[in-house]
């Protein structure tokens, strides 16, 4: 019977050890990261409007998570802990950048999905690009990563009611863009 990294972790203590305290915790981290790596990378890319800096932010997020693994409580979801670190790194990036530079990066994105939906996809990403960084994160955590409102609240530290409100506003704005067939 094979055990996942999370199973191994749950069998141990409630908190991870510092990298120096246990060799196993370090190895375990890369195993735990594996199923989230792709989603994490794309979340950062999308939150940063596919900026070139996204690669650095992604690397910093992973290394920070590795360094502070001991602070992860195994009773909580690894993904929310990991994405909370990513959220902090994204926030740090925008704080450093100070000015928000609007760059049309959408055209650089690889074409995905069926061809007839490409225009719609671009429309959604253009909409997200115009959102405030924090709101954009909420948007992608919900629509891309599939996090529940309570999880988004944990990741971003925004109250659940505010998350709900932000998503409602985004939904209504998008409906205007696409034209809601039910309206």
């Amino acid at each position, binding site marked *: 019977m094979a055990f996942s990294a999370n199973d191994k972790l749950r069998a141990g203590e409630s908190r991870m050890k510092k*990298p*120096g305290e246990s060799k196993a915790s370090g190895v375990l981290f890369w195993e735990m990261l594996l199923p989230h*790596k792709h989603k994490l990378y794309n979340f950062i890319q999308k939150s940063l409007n596919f900026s070139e800096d996204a690669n650095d932010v*992604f690397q910093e997020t992973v*290394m920070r998570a590795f360094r502070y693994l001991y602070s992860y409580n195994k009773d909580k979801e690894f993904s929310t802990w990991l994405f909370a670190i990513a959220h902090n790194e994204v926030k740090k990036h925008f704080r450093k950048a100070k000015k928000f530079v609007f760059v049309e990066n959408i055209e650089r994105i*690889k074409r995905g999905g*069926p061809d007839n*939906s490409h225009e719609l996809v671009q429309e*959604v990403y253009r909409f997200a690009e115009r959102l405030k960084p924090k709101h954009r994160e909420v948007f992608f955590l919900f*629509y891309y990563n599939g996090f529940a409102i309570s999880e988004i609240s944990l990741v971003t530290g925004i109250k659940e009611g505010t998350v709900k409100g932000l998503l409602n506003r985004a939904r209504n704005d998008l409906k205007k863009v696409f034209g809601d067939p039910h309206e």
Partner: protein
Amino acid sequence: MNNDKDFDRKIAELVRSMEAEIPAAVEERLKMAEGAGRARQKILGRRPVFYLGILSSAAAVLLLFVFLVPLFRGVPESPISEIRTEFELKDKNIKIIFIQRKDFNLFKEEK
């Protein structure tokens, strides 16, 4: 409510249809960082034993130094070679002289 769920599903589909692959260079950098992290772990894991060895060696060297250096130097010669104590009982015309030398042994009977 259902309309919202359908709409959300549609938007999620559109958002998820576009995904970027992690560039090989980024993966490479992560692998390097991972390797460096593991090497750091090994060093950190070894650290208590490593420091214990160093500390015990240092203590041994210090002890040797403390005990051996005076031996090599030799005990310095005291400028006082003899202590004399004289008592004179004038009325009996007696003079008592105590001579204390450094080679005088209290517990050894003189032959």
